[in-house]
Structures are given as structure tokens and as C-alpha cells.
């Protein structure tokens, strides 16, 4: 086999603009690049000099697709800097907001972006015609996610009500109960989704990358814990120390900075799969049963299984959110923003966005203005890992002498398994 150059310009069905280039020479992979061609908006420079009050409002606009996560992570950074403690009720509402985003994102990524790969359509619209029932239920699940974000945040994207210290508005008891019922009614479909994704044939391979996720004792955390874990490196650390464990670096072919482990220099993969690997034991019972049935157990190193992991998280999220909504309907206390004192200092906020761990690192002067900001998104962390896995996958397929078109398809599938959010990665 001679030299093969595979280029996919504007890779479709991902969030944002990116190109892939793979060069294979005589069965050997020579070069692999994931180019991010999204125009940079320079958010870090935009929040500089601005008040803590506007900060989360601006940085939520890094990405509409996971805006609740950016908004909340930014708020948590401010709270870490000022030493703000929020109420139990606020914490529950925040968890709902994050999960609303999971339901939106996982459902649309899986059904709109990934399913066409396995049923062979260029876009989702033919699917709407060929299997309207599946499509309708998928849309209903996504709508539930949007409604959850709207009820809690005031709008399906770019939350209005979430501010430093609490929430400016809350819905009524009946609305929480209605949400709980709708979630419970969707659980069977989420379980079918797990079965559907476990039926898709994927290329088997073991990634050499490390995985990163938020961890908490006896809980499957998405926003509640300050602790992180690098699974392979076997390192557990506090968010405030993240720079001792993770480092960003520039590459010429990408507008996004890449991330790797400080110690092992291995690229890091953060995702639904990383969360399930790190907290499998803390999944709700039904989600764990579904995961085991689908053959996903820790430590699963095939990144192609990330879509399956997302499906499992749908089951888990519905179960958790219905319980939280029932709690909120009857629990005492409120979520009104608490009082706090503005002071100089640095704070790092970290949450599990749908696509993995996101950091907002903010430093304030004593008037509460941003002196320095650094934002690390899940996709920026994952780009290095994605390139490494693409290289490995292309190598395996080239060795098997598979044709160019097949390799191209498999690489596109891998990219969509990673579920990059490119608009996030270049901010």
C-alpha cells in the first residue's frame, strides 16, 4: 500500500468546526492532526478587569451547548475565592442544572450525531423519516433536558437565575413533582438506548491515555466534590492543586491549547466514560445493572465506548434527578443568594460538564475585579488524547489493510465517540 492521506475537512456532526488529517505511508501512520479552525474569541482576556458579578454571565457564552456548566463553574470559582458557602437547596438545584445539560447533550449527541454513523445516513433527517418512533422519543428526552434547564435556570441555555451565592428565582412545588414524573416515565427509553448502543459494532482497541474525573466517597458526583482523580496515574488531588497535575501546551495546528499529565506526560481523556470508570460503584443500581449488561465495567479503555457510557449516564441522571425534584418539592430552606464579602484572592471552580471536567481559575483584586483568568475546557483536555487514539486506531486498521474509505469512516466515528465540543475548546 502506498502513501494514503486522509483528510476530513469540517468534520460533521460534532459541535464546532474542526478538520482531521491522517497520513499513512506503507501501512505506517506518519502524521495525525486534529485542526481546530474555530475563530478564537479570547474569553480569558474578555473577563479581565470585569466585576465578579458579570463574570459567569460572560463566560457562559463560551459555549451554548454546555452553558449551564460554564456558568456554574465560574460561579464556583468566585465562591472559592470569596469563601462563600451556599445552602443545601442551592446545591441540589445546581445538580439539576448540570444534569439538565447532560440530558440535552447526551440525547442530542447520541441520536442526532452518532446514530447516523451506525445506520449509514449523512444526517439525522432521513432517520426522522425511517424510524419516527425512535426519533420522537429521543427528542422527548432531549426536550426533558431543555425543560429541566429552563425550569431551574430560567432558559434552556445561558441560565439567568444562577448567581454567586444561590438562585434568583425558583419554580413551584407542583412543577418539581411534574418534572419528577416525566423523568421516571423516560427511564425505560433510556434503558433501551443503552441496549441500542451496546448492539453497535465498534473496533476493539485499548487506549494508552490516562483518564480524569471528579470523585467523591459514596457518590457519583458532577458538581458536588472538589476532588479529582487521574485513574491510570493513580493520583487523587484537590481542584486547587490542578496545576501540579495537569499542564496545557500549544501546538501549531490547533487554535485550542492541549492538556497532559505533568508527571507522566500522557494525554488525558475526560468524559462520561472516565466518570463511569472512576465512580462505577456509585452508579444508581439500575444504571449499574444496565452497564454490566452492556459489558461496560471499570476500567474500560476503549474510547469508542464513550457513547455507551453516555447512554448509561442518561439512565443514572433520570433516576437521580427525579429523586432530587421530589426532595426539592418538600424540603425546607431556600436558595436565595447568601450574603458574602468581596475580597482579593484566587479561586478555582471545577465541575463535570457533559463532556468532562471543566476548570475556571479566577484571580480577583479587592474590589472583586478579575485580575487573571484561565479556563480549561473538557474538549481542550481531550484533543491530545484524541490525536493519540486516532494514531493508534489508524495504525490498527492500516495493518489490517483496510481501505481508505473504511479508515476514514472509523476515524470519524472515533471523533464522534469523543464528542468534541470545538466551540468550547477555542474560547
Amino acid at each position, binding site marked *: 500500500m502506498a502513501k494514503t492521506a486522509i483528510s476530513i475537512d*469540517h468534520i*460533521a456532526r460534532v459541535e464546532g468546526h474542526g478538520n482531521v488529517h491522517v497520513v499513512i505511508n506503507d501501512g505506517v501512520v506518519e502524521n495525525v492532526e486534529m485542526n481546530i479552525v474555530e475563530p*478564537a474569541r479570547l474569553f480569558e*482576556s*474578555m473577563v479581565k478587569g470585569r466585576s465578579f458579578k458579570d463574570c459567569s454571565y460572560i463566560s457562559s457564552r463560551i459555549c451554548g*451547548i454546555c452553558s449551564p456548566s460554564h456558568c456554574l463553574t465560574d460561579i464556583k470559582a468566585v465562591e472559592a475565592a470569596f469563601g462563600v458557602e451556599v445552602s443545601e437547596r442551592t446545591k441540589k438545584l445546581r445538580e439539576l442544572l448540570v444534569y439538565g445539560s447532560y440530558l440535552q447533550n447526551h440525547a442530542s449527541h447520541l441520536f442526532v450525531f452518532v446514530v447516523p454513523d451506525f445506520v449509514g445516513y449523512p*444526517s439525522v433527517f432521513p432517520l426522522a423519516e425511517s424510524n419516527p418512533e425512535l426519533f420522537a422519543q429521543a427528542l422527548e428526552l432531549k426536550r426533558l433536558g431543555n425543560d429541566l434547564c429552563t425550569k431551574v435556570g430560567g432558559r434552556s441555555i445561558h441560565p439567568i437565575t444562577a448567581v454567586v451565592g444561590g438562585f434568583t*428565582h425558583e419554580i413551584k412545588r407542583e412543577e418539581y413533582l411534574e418534572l419528577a414524573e416525566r423523568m421516571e416515565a423516560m427511564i425505560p427509553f433510556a434503558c433501551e438506548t443503552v441496549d441500542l448502543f451496546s448492539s453497535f459494532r465498534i473496533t476493539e482497541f485499548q487506549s494508552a491515555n490516562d483518564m480524569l474525573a471528579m470523585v467523591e466517597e459514596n457518590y457519583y458526583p458532577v458538581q458536588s466534590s472538589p476532588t479529582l482523580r487521574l485513574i491510570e496515574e493513580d493520583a487523587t488531588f484537590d481542584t486547587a492543586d490542578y496545576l501540579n497535575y495537569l499542564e496545557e501546551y500549544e501546538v501549531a495546528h490547533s487554535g485550542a491549547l492541549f492538556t497532559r499529565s505533568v508527571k507522566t506526560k500522557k494525554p488525558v481523556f475526560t468524559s462520561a466514560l472516565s466518570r463511569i470508570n472512576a465512580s462505577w460503584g456509585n452508579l444508581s443500581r439500575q444504571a449499574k445493572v444496565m452497564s454490566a449488561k452492556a459489558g461496560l465495567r471499570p476500567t474500560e479503555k476503549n474510547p469508542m465506548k464513550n457513547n455507551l457510557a453516555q447512554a448509561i449516564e442518561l439512565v443514572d441522571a433520570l433516576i437521580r434527578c427525579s429523586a432530587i425534584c421530589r426532595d426539592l418539592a418538600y424540603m425546607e430552606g431556600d436558595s436565595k443568594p447568601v450574603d458574602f464579602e468581596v475580597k482579593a484572592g484566587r479561586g478555582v471552580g471545577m465541575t463535570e460538564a457533559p463532556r468532562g471536567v471543566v476548570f475556571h481559575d479566577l484571580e480577583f483584586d479587592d474590589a472583586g475585579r478579575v485580575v487573571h483568568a484561565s479556563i480549561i475546557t473538557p474538549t481542550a483536555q481531550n484533543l491530545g488524547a484524541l490525536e493519540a487514539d486516532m494514531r493508534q486506531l489508524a495504525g490498527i486498521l492500516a495493518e489490517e489493510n483496510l481501505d481508505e474509505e473504511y479508515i476514514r469512516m472509523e476515524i470519524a466515528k472515533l471523533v464522534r465517540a469523543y464528542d468534541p465540543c470545538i466551540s468550547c475548546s477555542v474560547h
Partner: protein
Amino acid sequence: MPYQERRRSITPRVVVVGLASCFGCQLQITNQEQYLTDVLGQIEVVYWQMTSSEPMPDSFDVAVIEGAVTNRESEETVRELREKASKIITIGACAVTAGIPGIAAKDYEDRPHEVYNTIPEACGELIAPRSVGSVIDVDYEVRCCPIDFYEFVQVLSAALYGSNHKLRTTTMCTECKQKENICFYAKGEICLGLVTVGGCQARCPSLGRPCNGCRGISPSANLESARQSVIKYGLSVDEFNEKLEMFNQTNTQFTGEEAAVEEAR
């Protein structure tokens, strides 16, 4: 004429393009799944990079543009769209007023270096963020960050079939008072509803949060008298100005006038 071809000749062909943005406005459209197929039924989306892998065609009727112009490449893209499309609709604050990306317009030259040591080639030739309307003529706008889906449908039908729908010019306060919200100024907080064009039903003040002006400044707003009110309530005019700059560059350099000058050169 065979049915397929006839259908093609009468169904408006639409392209949706994203520039520097958060994708949120496009998402607002895809988020209304239940009505999406109804709306899409009357048009043919011939290019929507966010949802499909088909390439952009050479001819179409309407171009829907999201995002601000932040590099020479996107400047070229919008000019090309203007040439090919008979109607241009901009969606969202980014495209209409330069929105949040526009914050970076001030002292732009220094900014890329605050984020990168060496600016990656992939960024293209960066220019200070500007609205689409400052580069080309725009026929219709859908405002706010993010847009409202129903408003988008309204504007799209106006673009396709015409309408005598008049643009609102009153400020937000009219709608806010109808909702019987307590005014933020009475609580000692700055709210940009005072100068922002109405139409969102005072969405934020109704949820306990002051307006940040994402809909843009109202043509009937009086900025000077608004600043006087801010002083009257004992609040800071600097803070008011700073908030205003979040979605509305008052720096004319990037609001259109400058582009016209550049063009004339």
C-alpha cells in the same frame, strides 16, 4: 416539470452558517424539536454544517448567520453569502451587535498575546470582533443572546413571504411594568432595561435578575438621561457604562461607521 424539480424551484433554499459564536442561537432552533419539522417542512435547508456533512451549495435564497466576524476569513464568508443570497438574516447578539465577542474589540491588538504565546495558524488572520451588519447589508435581525425560537420563526417567515411587522422601538421598562416587577433601581441595582429595546417580555427582571441589554439599545433610548437617573438613584455611572459595553459597543469604530470608511478608502 418533474415533481422533484418543481418542488425545488418553489421551496425556498436556506443555509445556516456559524461564525465566532457559542452556537447557542443555532441550538435554540434545534432545541424546538417539536416545531422544527413543521417549520423545516416549508423550506429546504440546503446547508447546515452543525447537523449534516453535506457541503455548502452554490445557490440559495436565504442565509441565516450566527456569530461575530473575528477574522479575515469570516469577513470573506459573509461577503460571499451576501452575493449568493437574496435575503440575509442575522441571529443573536454576536451577529447583530457583535455581542459578547465584541467585548474584545477594545484594545484588540494586545489580546491574542494574553491567551497564546505564539498565535496558532489555525486561528486565521484575526481582526477586532465586529457585527455582521458592519461588514455587509443585513435584511433581517433576530436579537437577544440567545434568540427566541418563536421570534426566529416570525422573522424567517417575514423574510420568505414578506410581512408588515414593524420593529419595536420602546424600551424594556414598558413590558417590565406590565409584568408588575419591582424595579431594580428601587432596590439599588443597575438594570439596563432602561435603555434596551423591548421585545423579550422583560425576561430577566421577571426572573429576579437585572437586564444586561442583550437585545441591543433601543432607538428611542436616551443614554444621557438614563445616566442621570443612575446618578439620581445614587448608583455608579461607570458601572452603568461598563455593563452597557457587555453587549453594546458604544465605540463607533466597530459599529458600522468605521467599516463604511474602510470601504470608501
